[in-house]
């Protein structure tokens, strides 16, 4: 059984994993890029080693260097977090070869689910429904894809074969626009995963994105921890997740949960994983893909089940049986997570970089914040813009929304722009409150402006605030000018004196 865990990741998830290790008495080894010397995961870990320059390709994606650190430090397990090397079959296999426990599924499961086309074929065999699309394909050319597209029908999605997180994904409305979109999807996939392969899938309209958390041990036990509703997305990036989904009833939950377990079993799955489904408005559900790793949004499941998923991952990897049977998993209350991104919601969600100069976290009952940043830390353009996850729990969905509203209002981050105002607007929206949304909601039926139909009273306060700040500024600069005048005059004397005596 391993004793020292290397965390091959950065940011909030590296911190999250260090916490779980520490609470289980496991030693931790952090790795970091030059941009992350002062990152929280480096500060919190027992050991920390530099990998290389800031770009991921030269640091967090350098499997060879990470394995060298593991060997040097005697780390006998590696937790990959999410992203970076988390779903790289070859990396998992190399760990295995070196006798290092990879905290995740077997390389063969990663491979089976990592290639989206193969994954579809595998689960179809196990009787799991899938979205219509390109079947059993490896490297399809643009010509192949353009030929098959009309058979699938528009609208459709181009998706990266090695994909995840919406990267390399494009929506196609017609054959005409498809060549351009193919090109940009491949480019993005290539840059994100080092693999430009793509495939096609029918776009299910009015669909919800609902996923099931799976945990499985090496003794053949597989259970699910219920679903997460992840339909609040923008450009295929999840922004808000909640558990349970306001759309499911117990019957559908059990049915989908069973299918999810079946899908995991189809690839001999071990450890934590997620089965993503699309659910259309008639409650038909389709397997979308399996994420063979810990998910960003795992905390909402932790809040409603009381189960520490990362601790459970570590136990499973140590060869233990699951701590729970399916019957022992109880769901209590409602949890919501808002992803706090360094991006400007008032300016097309453009990423924002800079040093965080000040921060106040929302705290109190039912509030959890998972973050890797702190005042003084610099947000660089090299990595994902997600800087924190704000998670709340309430006895009911309504209470959770109210709690999220007060937590968002309390949250202060100064130094970079964040999408907190987006979340505030969302939590105020009647459609969100009513649970009436699908994956297109944010892009098609939501706007930062619509919500802010000019509140007269607030506008007046804004006017007073700006005036007071401007007034203060004017007064201060007047003082500085006065002081500078004096200084300058002194320096002028020196200048004259020097000229006189030259």
């Amino acid at each position: 059984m391993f004793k020292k865990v290397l965390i091959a990741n950065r940011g909030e998830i590296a911190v999250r994993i260090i916490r779980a290790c520490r609470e289980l008495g496991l030693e931790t080894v952090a790795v970091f890029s030059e941009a992350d010397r002062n990152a929280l995961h480096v500060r919190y870990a027992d050991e920390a080693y530099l990998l290389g320059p800031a770009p991921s390709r030269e640091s967090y994606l350098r499997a060879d260097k990470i394995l060298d650190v593991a060997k040097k430090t005697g780390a006998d397990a590696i937790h990959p977090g999410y992203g970076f090397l988390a779903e790289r079959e070859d990396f998992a296999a190399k760990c295995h070869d070196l006798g290092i426990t990879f905290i995740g599924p077997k390389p063969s499961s990663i491979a089976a689910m990592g290639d989206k086309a193969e994954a579809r074929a595998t689960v179809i065999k196990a009787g799991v429904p899938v979205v219509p699309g390109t079947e059993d394909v490896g490297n399809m050319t643009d010509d192949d894809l353009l030929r098959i597209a009309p058979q699938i029908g528009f609208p459709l999605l181009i998706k990266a074969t090695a994909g995840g997180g919406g990267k390399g994904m494009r929506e196609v409305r017609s054959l005409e626009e498809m060549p351009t979109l193919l090109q940009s999807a491949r480019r993005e996939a290539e840059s994100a995963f080092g693999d430009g392969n793509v495939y096609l899938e029918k776009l299910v309209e009015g669909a919800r994105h609902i996923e099931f958390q799976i945990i499985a041990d090496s003794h053949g036990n597989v259970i699910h921890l219920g679903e997460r509703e992840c339909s609040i997305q923008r450009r295929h990036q999840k922004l808000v997740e909640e558990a349970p989904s306001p759309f499911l009833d117990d019957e559908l939950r059990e049915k989908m949960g069973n299918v999810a377990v079946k899908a995991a079993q189809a690839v001999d799955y071990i450890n934590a994983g997620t089965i993503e489904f699309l659910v259309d408005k008639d409650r038909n559900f389709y397997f979308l893909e399996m994420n063979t790793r810990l998910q960003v949004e795992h905390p909402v499941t932790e809040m409603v089940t009381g189960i520490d998923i990362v601790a459970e991952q570590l136990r499973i990897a140590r060869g233990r049986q699951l701590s729970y049977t399916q019957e022992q998993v109880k769901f209590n209350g409602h949890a919501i997570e808002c992803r706090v991104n360094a991006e400007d919601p008032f300016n097309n969600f453009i990423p924002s970089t800079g040093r965080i100069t000040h921060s106040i976290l929302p705290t109190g009952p039912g509030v959890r914040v998972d973050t890797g940043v702190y005042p003084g830390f610099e947000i660089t353009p090299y990595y994902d813009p997600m800087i924190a996850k704000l998670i709340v729990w309430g006895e009911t969905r309504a209470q959770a929304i109210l709690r999220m509203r007060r937590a968002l209002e309390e949250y202060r981050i100064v130094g970079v722009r964040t999408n907190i105002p987006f979340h505030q607007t969302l939590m105020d929206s009647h459609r969100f409150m009513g649970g009436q949304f699908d994956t297109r909601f944010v892009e098609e039926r939501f706007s930062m402006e619509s919500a802010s139909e000019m509140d007269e009273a607030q506008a007046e306060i804004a006017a007073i605030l700006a005036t007071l700040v401007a007034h203060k500024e004017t007064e201060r600069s007047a003082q500085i000018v006065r002081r500078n005048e004096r200084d300058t005059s002194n320096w002028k004397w020196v200048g004259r004196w020097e000229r006189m005596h030259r």
Partner: protein
Amino acid sequence: MRYVTTIDGKEYEIEVVDDRHVRIGDRLLTVDFESVSGQPVFSLILDGKSHESFVYQSDEGWQVLLYGRQFQVKVEDEREKRLRAAAGGGVAEGGEFHLKAPMPGLVVAIPVSEGQEVKKGQVLVILESMKMQNELKSPRDGVVAHIKAKAGESVEQKQILLNLQ
């Protein structure tokens, strides 16, 4: 000191009477105004009501982030206002527009060329940053004057990428 403050076309006449009072229109309000922790975060108690806001200056004037909304505010003192009025209604609109990189990043593509006419909302530059491809769009109709960056180039924040006429 008297100011004319404008939000979304609406003008507010605001007088900073002293440290504890402002007059807006003909209402005299009590203010207790503090910056918090030396940050551009301001706590304002206005006639007993407590408000907190992030206020900073941008190219477009003052930005006030208040209750999850962002207000673009123009503040002019009376003298400035008079000068602008005398100049005949302010600066002409539609001058040259400089598209600046909103963050450091890698230019992926520039799908327009010099001399090309572009529409408001048309993509001018695709910039990769934070692992995302970001489309920088035209804020108005116009003609691309000079392109000052090229695909594959790393650019700094605020670097001018192209000019629009």
